[in-house]
Structures are given as structure tokens and as C-alpha cells.
């Protein structure tokens, strides 16, 4: 039996950070946080959790991407970033606005990627996972991870340049 209270207390901040970073607002991050742990519990019912942190992070990315896609389809909340997330000291307002704009563009672009490509990109570029770790999490070979990342980057560049050209 897993000590879920301890796991939530220990891994909660990491999971919440991932969800917040990808979703950009607290309400969505909170819901994604709960969904992630419930998904992990269901997963633990089927197979033992060998590396709880890695699995939780991956589940958090997957759940956050699901929400991002739903949001992208609804197109109702284009700008959901909260200003409290932006640093106040040492950064000019223009830099702050630029970072917010870039982040939001990248979120929208990620929502258009296939799920596996988006997860591989987030785990590699945002969470700093290695190819091998991503391969274990996504259940694919290292070569396949490379292909996923390459395709994800190519598509994201295309999407970002389209947005920039509009």
C-alpha cells in the first residue's frame, strides 16, 4: 500500500508547478493537480509505481496538455496568464509582457501537437528529462524519443512563425 499522503506532500509542489506552468492559472492548475494524483492512484492499482516522481510529472504533463487542448478548442480563454506569475524585480514591464506573450503562444502551439510529441517536448524542454527517462515514461525507444522531439520542434517552429506572421 502506497503512502499517498506522503507522496502528495512530497511530490505535490513539483506536480503543481508543472500544471501551473503549462496552464497559466491557478484554478486550472488546482484541478489538474487533483486529476494527476487520482490518475496515479488508478495506475498504482494496475502496476506498482517504481518511480513515483517521474510518473507523477509525466501524468501532470499529460493532464495539463489535455486541459490545454480543451481550452484551445474552446478558444474562449486566449490569455489566461496571471500577472502574479511574472517577476517584479529586475525585469522591465516589456520583458515581462514579452515572456507572457511567448509563453501563451507556446501553450497554444503545444495544444495543436499530437499528445506524445507534446509530452516529449514538455518533459525534455521544460522539465529537463533525458531521452532515456522520457523513453521510459512514454514507453518508447530513445531513437523514437529523438524522432518525437524533432517532429515536435519542427511543428512548433512552424506554428510559432505562423502566429508571428499574423
Amino acid at each position, binding site marked *: *500500500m502506497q503512502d*499517498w*499522503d506522503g507522496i*502528495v*506532500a512530497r511530490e*505535490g*509542489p513539483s*506536480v*503543481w*508547478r508543472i500544471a*501551473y*506552468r*503549462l496552464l497559466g492559472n*491557478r484554478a486550472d492548475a*488546482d484541478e489538474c*493537480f*487533483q486529476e494527476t*494524483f*487520482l490518475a496515479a*492512484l*488508478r495506475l498504482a*492499482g*494496475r502496476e506498482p509505481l517504481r518511480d513515483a516522481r517521474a510518473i507523477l510529472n509525466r501524468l501532470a504533463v499529460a493532464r495539463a496538455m489535455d486541459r490545454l487542448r480543451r481550452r484551445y478548442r474552446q478558444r474562449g480563454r486566449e490569455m489566461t496568464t*496571471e500577472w*502574479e*506569475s*511574472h*517577476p517584479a524585480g529586475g525585469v*522591465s*514591464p*516589456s*520583458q515581462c*509582457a*514579452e*515572456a*507572457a*506573450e*511567448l*509563453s501563451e*503562444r*507556446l*501553450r497554444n*502551439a503545444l495544444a495543436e501537437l499530437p499528445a506524445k510529441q507534446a509530452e516529449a517536448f514538455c518533459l525534455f*524542454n*521544460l522539465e529537463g528529462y533525458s531521452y532515456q527517462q522520457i523513453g521510459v515514461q512514454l514507453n518508447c525507444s530513445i531513437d523514437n524519443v529523438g524522432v518525437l522531439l524533432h517532429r515536435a*520542434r519542427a511543428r*512548433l*517552429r512552424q506554428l*510559432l*512563425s505562423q502566429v*508571428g506572421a499574423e
Partner: protein
Amino acid sequence: MRPENSESENRFDRGDLLNRAAEALRDLPTPNGPSRELIARTQAALRRAQTKIPAGRLMFLRPTLFRVAAMVAVVCGSTLGYWTAARWNRPRRQSDLVRVDVAPDRSKPDAVPDARPRQNPLVPSLPPSHSSTTGPALEKDPAPPPPAAPILADGILTGRIVFDGAVSPPRPMMGVNMTPECIREHGGAIYDESMVVGANGTLANVVVSVSDGLSGWLREEYPPPPPAVLDQKGCVFVPHVVPVMVGQQLLIRNSDPFLHNVRVMAVNNPPANLGQPSTSESQTAPFESPEVFRVKCDVHPWMQAWVRVVDNPFFAVTGRDGLFTIRGLPPGTYTLKAWHEQLGVKEQQIVIVPGEGADANFTFHAGPR
């Protein structure tokens, strides 16, 4: 001094936008982490969910067991199906064709004693070491003598195929008018060849072959004949029906000055899809199993021919006069099979007596096969 907003726009265009966007998202500071209330709420939800886990596990086990059972059923079913299909569709094996210790059929007075059945009369006599009467001598010599010209035995089987029924006039094929090059090459309209009936009801394009009674005959003693030729001339396959032997090849030729695409629709033999530019030739792989299949052209949909693969060299196809001749049959009792693409199959028992020929006439009737 440049205004800040224009500087910001320029920075968007510099460098790799993707890397900068990824950096911006990665470095986005998170406010305070999850609230204590959220953590407590999640822990409570997990505890509630954990109490339901045993039931959930059972629920999960059910589809697992179902999946395993379904997989086992599929594997067993496919294995059984494959085994059954292999038994029913298998080509005649060499062991089926070799008869070493078969007693003559005494129940039939007309049956000829097994005088020479083990030697194919179409090939010259072989030294004793090659004779099939000695079982182990079937092993091949390091340097077997090349096959000589066939020696025709007395067993000449002739016959005539007639059709009993009303004959409708030949039907012009549809779609030919859209291809003037075909009309030009053919020299006029192209007619359906599925029922070619000559004077007095003689039936063409019937393949007559020996289907049973050749248990003493050795296929190894008769090399496959040279490839049979199927020509495409004037947007028609010539001949319309081609009988070939197992081991023989089919040389498909395009004599027209334009493209044909030949599709060999075999099932028990290797199929083929051959694009044939003007005046070219292609050769199929040797046929492996007895079968009847169509050959058609994808470019000209009315073009089709039939290939009948027979597992012995004793076959013939009728012309417009309905006549056929099969030479070299050893004395014995055989089952003769006549096949027509529209009228189906008819069988007949024949007896070849040494020194004499035999006649076999078939009559096909109109109606379902």
C-alpha cells in the same frame, strides 16, 4: 531612443522563437505552490478512492481475463483455420504422385494391369537406377542426363466438346468505344469470348485435363514445358484460355503499341501486377499449385483471360471445332475433367488400352453450373 514596444517586437523576430518561448515558459515563476487546502483536499480524495480500489481491481481483472480469453480464442481459431485451409488447399505433394507399391485395381475388369505406369512415356527410358520401381532410386544423380524429346506412346485421347442449348449472338464488350487505339489495333469491335460456340454447337476454350488416375506417374520425370505465351494483341488476350502445368511459367506479352497493366489474380500461386509498356514481355514465377484464375488488364477493363494450372502434362484446350487431343497417356483408367469458364466442370472416366487410343466426348448444357 526607441520606444519599448517596438524594441519588444524586434526581439520577437531575433533568434529562434521556439527556444525563447520555451525559455520563457520554463522560467515562468510559480506563485506559491499548491495551497495547504488543496493538498489536504487531494489527500482526502485519494483516501476515499483507495477504499474503492479492491472493487476497482476486480473490475479491472474482468476485462483482463476477457482479453486473455479472447486472445486465446483468436489464436486457436486462426491456427485451426490455417490448418484446415492448408489441408484442403494444399497442392498435390510429391509423395502423393509417387506410387511405389500399389496393387492393380482388380475390381475393375477394364483396368489394365500395372504394366508401365511408373514410367512417364513422354520421356525416354531411364537406367535402372532412375526407375521409380525401386523406391530409393528416386535420389537424384549428381549429373542427371538432360531430358530428351518426348516419346509419344500409343495412348492418344481425342474427343469433342459440344454445347447443348440456345446460343446468343456474340456480345460486344462495353467501353471499347472509348479507346480508339484499341479499335484501331483490333480492327473493329471486340466481342465477349466467354462463350465461343462454333458450327454444330462445338465449344471452344474448354480445358480438358486428367484429374485422377495418375498415381503411378512421376512428375520429376517430366520437366516443365517452356513458358506458355499469353499475348495482348488488339486489346484482347490471346489465347483467351491458357492451360499450364505446375512448374511451368507464363510469358505475358504486350504486342500493342500502348500500355497494358496485367494483373494475375492467382490465390494459390504467386499473384502479379505487371505494368507493361508497348511491345514488352514479362514472365511470371513458376506456378506451384493447381488452380484456375483470371488474368485481367487494369487499363482496359474488358480484357480478361483464364489460366488453368494442372498438376500433370496431360491437358489440352479446345478450339472453335471443339476438338482436343491428349497424347502420351499410359494405359490405365483415368478421370478426365473438362472445365469451361461459364459452364463449369464435367468429369468422365476413360480407359486407355495398350496400343489403342480412346475417345471422350463431353456435352455441356445451358443453365447453372
